[in-house]
């Protein structure tokens, strides 16, 4: 392989993505929808509300009643609700005088998206507390729906699910189709080398490459992002290797269908990436999907892999708990491999 550019992409992409999703994206907060609950208006509250409504990063959604808090958050109309205390002006005066006191307002955040919730909370805290921000207890923050912020690391299994499909499936399919396109595949096929050996030889480098990626991702996740990795390392690797094989089989299957590199690229990128991102539970939890989409997501292999990785990496589950995921992945791998090889043989005929 003298194709150093592909090599570089294959090796750097996971690192960049992990770091990107890990750090860069978490700091970006735009358009936080905020509503307020005001038991009794006074000058202090009016000032605080003004601060909120005039901030360019916040969309002020008006006043709601206490009863509506839950419904508003659940429906997703607002991301955060500020509840002012009924004796807000008295408490604030106390704060200004003594520099401490009881919490004068409550901040209730929708934390189903942990990344924006964390950043948004920090941001709102700053605005509301203003120059009194040296103290944290002025604003009492509640994270709803996800109190322990457990999903903070959810993107790592997601990225793993995506990267391996990308690298194995896309690069394998593209490299095989490239041989078809340049005609070298014909030359290889008329040679005494068995077609199966050709396929095998094409898969090995990408399998090796993906193993390197797996190591990099696991090391980054552990030491840079501080993910607990509480599960058994052996199970993590076993499940990942099965998933790698599955991706390779998928790449082979694509290569039997596609005639041009660009087609192979499009199939891998558009047809596979989209379902992985949208349906695998990487971004949107499977449980929250409409009933129509749930069975569709079940045929996305990444869903089972991501699920298994989440359990292993973050929750520290034992192998028994991911047995179902594992068996589904093995089954899918065998099915895909059989289909791909059959297709490949048919094309030769």
């Amino acid at each position, binding site marked *: 392989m003298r194709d150093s550019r592909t090599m570089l992409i294959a090796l750097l992409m996971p690192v960049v993505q992990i770091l990107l999703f890990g750090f860069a994206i978490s700091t970006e907060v735009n358009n936080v929808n905020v509503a307020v609950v005001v038991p009794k208006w006074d000058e202090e509250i009016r000032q605080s509300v003004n601060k909120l409504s005039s901030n360019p990063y916040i969309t002020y959604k008006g006043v709601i009643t206490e009863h509506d808090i839950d419904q508003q958050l659940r429906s997703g109309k607002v991301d955060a609700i500020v509840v002012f205390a009924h004796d807000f002006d008295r408490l604030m005066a106390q704060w200004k005088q003594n520099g401490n006191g009881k919490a004068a307002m409550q901040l209730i955040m929708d934390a189903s998206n942990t990344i924006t919730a964390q950043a948004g909370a920090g941001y709102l805290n700053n605005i509301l507390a203003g120059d009194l921000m040296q103290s944290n207890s002025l604003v009492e923050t509640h994270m709803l729906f996800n109190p322990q912020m457990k999903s903070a690391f959810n993107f790592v299994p997601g990225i793993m699910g995506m990267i391996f499909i990308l690298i194995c499936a896309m690069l394998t399919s593209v490299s095989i189709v490239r041989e078809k396109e340049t005609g070298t595949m014909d030359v290889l096929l008329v040679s*005494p080398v068995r077609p199966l050996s050709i396929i095998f030889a094409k898969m090995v480098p990408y399998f090796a490459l993906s193993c390197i990626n797996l190591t990099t991702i696991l090391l980054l996740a552990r030491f840079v992002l501080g993910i607990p990795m509480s599960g058994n390392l052996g199970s993590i690797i076993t499940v990942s290797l099965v998933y790698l094989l599955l991706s390779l089989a998928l790449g082979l299957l694509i290569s039997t269908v596609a005639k041009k590199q660009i087609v192979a690229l499009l199939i891998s990128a558009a047809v596979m990436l989209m379902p992985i991102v949208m349906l695998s539970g990487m971004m949107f939890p499977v449980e929250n999907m409409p009933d129509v989409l749930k069975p569709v997501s079940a045929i996305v292999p990444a869903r089972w892999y991501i699920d298994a990785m989440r359990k292993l990496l973050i929750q520290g589950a034992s192998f028994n708990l991911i047995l179902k995921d594992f068996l589904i992945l093995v089954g899918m791998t065998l099915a895909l491999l059989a289909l791909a090889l059959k297709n490949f043989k048919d094309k030769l005929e």
Partner: protein
Amino acid sequence: MKTNDNKQQLIIQVQNLTKQFGAFTAVDHISFDVKRGEIFGFLGANGAGKTTAMRMLCGLSYPTSGSGSVAGFDVVKEGEKIKRHIGYMSQRFSLYDDLTVQENMELFGGIYGVKSSELRHRATSMLTRLDFLSEKDTLVGSLPLGWKQKLAFVVATIHRPEIVFLDEPTGGVDPITRRQFWEMIYEASSEGTTIFVTTHYMDEAEYCNRISMMVDGKIKALDTPGNLKKKYAAASMDEVFRTLARGAQRGD
């Protein structure tokens, strides 16, 4: 037009070879023989079925019906054995662009099981003959097309096959390079290699010992260029081709 020479002298024998893709008959009951050491031109318009016929002879594709043998092996049952005795050069340039001249030769020589010491010797002598030894560490991708094609021919014959199949080897190549290319073909032929070549260029057809003309999957004519011209009262192969191809249903 069957020759009744000694069977040993016939390196390709084909009887009623047919290939159907669904309802479409790409190759329709073709029969012909190729003699050892001959330069056999396989002509026809686009879509006439040349490449399909050639793929069957190379063991790349199974015939729907009919029989044939290449280098003494059955095209239906012994495709794998055939592959070991033939060379093949595809109509698209088919070396690895990101390997050097030397590496390409080693790769394909290795695939055909040529011993590495022998391989190095052959590579050097062939490159020397082409006056190309100085470029042996150049990446193939950076060579001009003419050179690539010549190199592809060298690679296709590096394992000294009994017969080499050339599928439109000179497509897109300038006349001078084409001329040089045919010199290489003659040289290989004089060393006893049988050449089976498809081409679009009718002037090249004149270089062949015998040619066959395929129209709509059938062989319409098979003889030496001279005889064909006489038979169809034509001044050139081009005219012969146009007479025969008139009335073709397929092609562009």
